[in-house]
């Protein structure tokens, strides 16, 4: 598979009143063309911040690590995303080659202009296109994401739509420019499952049609199981496990991944109590030394976990985990 985007040693800190806060630390992964990567993990573990970095969209108080690199293989050749500075340079990633569906649908629509005008403006920004043609494409996309009466919705404001419709309008807007990479941050949480299934099918069609790569952030492991090729798991800013979707869901290695899967409410046993991963998440201001999960880990080995950062171990060529239970070269 040819690489679409390569992330290496990504570290992101934020300047705050209380000092530098580390949100993402030393994260590396590669996404191929036409590949769907599911990104899961604790709330606040850095998923959205990582995703925004791919488009260089983080807030101005963000500080990137010195050796952090994000390379996008665009049609015109490789682009170093974090080196882009001016608005003109950034145009290639923002909405041209990469589109993002944001976690907060309200935030991505300007309140005072209609959904349709916003879609048309975005399309015209990226390509030479008549207004009429842009409208045609927009209405067609609204229709494809399952919005009824798309021509009428086109003239409505975001606040007039239900949560799920707003989310679909945003998906339509993100897909209308036919990006090479789609970053979808919790795109289906506000949708009922029947519409969710339809949106997922649409995304799969587009992967096939345009060979689009997708980074799919969601808390819904069922959605991941149904869509992703591979899964990456984050905890407190670190990528702690990555592998093919079947393996990670059926045979998770990291104690946190195991806890996450055990916490899922199961439909076949309504009497089973819900079992959260025990313990409190450390404050981002007090990152634990050693393994970041050691304050809550049920399998903690002792001193080594409290002091030494576990490196990556390949349990097989496509499945890696960062945990002292799996020493490099040892049996997995």
């Amino acid at each position: 598979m040819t690489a679409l985007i390569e992330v290496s040693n990504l570290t992101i800190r934020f300047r705050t009143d209380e000092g530098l806060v580390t949100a993402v630390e030393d994260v590396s992964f590669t996404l191929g063309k036409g590949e769907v990567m599911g990104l899961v993990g604790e709330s606040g573990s850095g998923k959205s911040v990582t995703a925004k970095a791919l488009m260089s969209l983080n807030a101005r108080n963000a500080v990137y690590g010195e050796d952090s690199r994000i390379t996008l293989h665009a049609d015109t050749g490789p682009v170093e995303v974090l080196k882009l500075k001016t608005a003109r340079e950034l145009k290639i990633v923002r909405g041209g080659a990469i589109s993002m569906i944001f976690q907060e649908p309200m935030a991505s629509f300007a309140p005072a202009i209609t959904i349709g005008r916003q879609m048309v403006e975005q399309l015209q920004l990226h390509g030479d296109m008549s207004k009429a043609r842009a409208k045609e494409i927009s209405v067609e996309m609204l229709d494809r994401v399952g919005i009824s009466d798309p021509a009428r919705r086109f003239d409505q404001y975001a606040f007039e739509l239900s949560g799920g419709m707003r989310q679909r309008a945003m998906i339509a807007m993100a897909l209308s420019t036919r990006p090479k990479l789609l970053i979808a941050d919790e795109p289906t949480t506000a949708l009922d499952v029947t519409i969710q299934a339809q949106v997922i099918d649409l995304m799969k069609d587009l992967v096939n049609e345009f060979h689009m790569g997708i980074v799919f952030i969601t808390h819904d492991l069922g959605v991941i199981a149904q869509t992703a090729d591979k899964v990456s798991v984050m905890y407190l800013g670190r990528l702690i496990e990555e592998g093919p979707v079947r393996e990670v869901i059926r045979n998770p290695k990291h104690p946190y991944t195991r806890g996450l899967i055990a916490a899922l409410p199961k439909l076949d046993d309504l009497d089973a109590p819900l079992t959260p991963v025990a313990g409190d998440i450390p404050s981002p201001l007090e990152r634990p030394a050693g393994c970041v999960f050691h304050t809550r880990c049920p399998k903690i080995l002792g001193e080594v976990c409290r002091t030494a950062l576990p490196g990556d171990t390949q349990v097989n060529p496509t499945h890696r985990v960062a945990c002292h239970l799996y020493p490099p070269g040892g049996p997995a």
Partner: protein
Amino acid sequence: MTDAPLIVTSDLSVGFRTGSGLFGKALLKAVDHVSLDIRKGSFFGLVGESGSGKTTLGRALLKAVPMTGGTARFRDGEVDYDLTTLSGPSLKDYRKRAQLIFQDPYAALSPRMTVRDIIAEPLEVMGLTKTREETDARVRAIAAKCRLNLEHLRRFPHAFSGGQRQRISIARALVSGPKFIVADESVAALDVSIQADVLNLLKELQRDLQITFLFISHDLSVVAHTCDHVAVMYLGRLVESAPTRRVFAAPRHPYTKALFSAIPSLDPDDRGRGQKLTGEIPSPTNQPPGCKFHTRCPYTIARCRTEEPALEHPGDGHEVACHRWRELQETTVA
């Protein structure tokens, strides 16, 4: 839980005027003749198509959008309010008793206020406490219930994770001592572990403080695990309503069945197995005649296109609005 209802609605409707231009303003029936009882102390789940009116129904019950038809009552001990006409001091009193937990724990909290001030704000706005000491005492008591400690109270929200922030929102919603809480997608943004934690907390509060919840969610596994009762909406109408176990064991309405079969399976080899709905999703401003689900229902017959089914009460507590539910129950395996 008791049998006495806290909320009773009868043909409750909410309409919006939308759009402009050629056809004038169209009427959008967001909530259309909904009659339901929410029993005191229950955890009442509300699910359904996106855009079916769940949020609008919740907001109408909190008096955040005007009702345009029908009635709604709130009965709690000495008070019996007609929510359609409530105003003045009674409305003020009702605002103490009914609260909303926001969906988004990030957006809902002001970044410039300490956690203590965020939780205290409703008390101050509603003038429920006289002295700072009294406010502090109430904030501390509710924070402890939500497992936030004194040190947390001095901090600003950005120092907290999603789950902790959601607990801050919950503390804020609870501080005025409400009896009725609308939780609209309030765990959707949380990872499954924190979600489990917050749900356990809500259930505990339901038991200990006798709070009644209207729990709006798209996550059917969460609803199955937490709610006592489930109501299903489609295009503004209530189409099914029953105790949770009954609905999940044997759904009666074809839309509910489709909903359950679309729940994404955790097994990657199950891809594309669920029953898919096809057909036109109707426009809420131009609703189909007859059963509103007939444009997508796999069991539509001629009668469905012209005659709207009423919500039936077959006597077993499992209500459904479909002409064919009895024969479908006999011919299909649930």
